[in-house]
């Protein structure tokens, strides 16, 4: 077939051209060895393959650190602060209770003891020439 559409073809070929062509080409290809099929290209192992596990561990550690710094630690600090405040409040309540149970004479006795301690400290300093 000269063309798929069988449109008028103004070109011609010599007589028996295609028959002779087949014979001629069979002779030619029998004398030529085809090239072997190309080997499939194996992707080269890149440095990335070796770095990947190391980077994965580093990424994991970074995530843990960020979570600890921004989430866990503030929570712990908050809990500690709450516990400290609770302890201070308890001390204050106990002090208030103690104060409420002490008489004026008990207070006076406590103040004298404190003064005596300061006196002894001053004498110590004089001995040391400080």
């Amino acid at each position, binding site marked *: 077939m*000269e063309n798929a559409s069988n449109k*008028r073809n103004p*070109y011609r070929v010599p007589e028996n051209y295609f028959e002779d062509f*087949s014979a001629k080409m069979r002779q030619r*290809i029998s004398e030529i060895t085809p090239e072997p*099929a190309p080997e499939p290209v194996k992707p080269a192992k890149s440095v990335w393959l070796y770095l990947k596990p190391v980077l994965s561990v580093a990424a994991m550690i970074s995530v843990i650190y960020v979570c600890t710094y921004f989430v866990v630690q503030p929570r712990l600090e908050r809990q500690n602060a709450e516990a400290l405040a609770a302890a201070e409040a308890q001390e204050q309540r106990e002090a208030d209770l103690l104060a409420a149970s002490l008489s004026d004479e008990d207070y006076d006795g406590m103040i004298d003891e404190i003064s005596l301690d300061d006196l002894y400290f001053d004498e110590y300093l004089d001995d040391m020439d400080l």
Partner: protein
Amino acid sequence: MSMIKEMTNQEIADALADPARRERVFTDIMNTYQRQIYWHIRRLVVRHDDADDILQNTFIKAWTSSASYRGDASITTWLYRIATNESIDFLNSAHQRYSSVLSEMDDYLVNSFTGDPWFDGDAAEQKLQEAILTLPRKQRIVFNLRYYDEMPYNEMSKVLDTTEGALKASYHHAAKKVEDFLRQSVKLS
């Protein structure tokens, strides 16, 4: 009876990769498609002797690289692609050879068939061939493949490694130019 037309692309690829079957299958391919490929080449290069040389080169190249045919495109697409590239290479080298003598490559081609004993078209057919030869090379290839071979655009896209949209636009422009050329020829005659 061609056994190639009964085989799938993959079966053809497997046969060409098998040294025991390669030559028989390839001979069948040549016998089945040589005319179709010849006329594609001939319409591009015009002269029979040039088309004959290019057709031989096409099948030699196809035979040499037959083991690398993987069946992902049809056997006709594969052959058309080789033939088109061989024809373009020939036209490029001919243009370099003759450009110092002739002002345009199409002058060479037009002169090829006006004195060629293997051209027996009447005046109208000669005008049509002249019109086609005025087209830029890529447009001429697209026009021939669509007009004469009625090749689907998706297959043409694989042959010429160009998008279907670009090919449709190219054919549209080519057909318009051919039509304008013929109208002008009628006016002047």
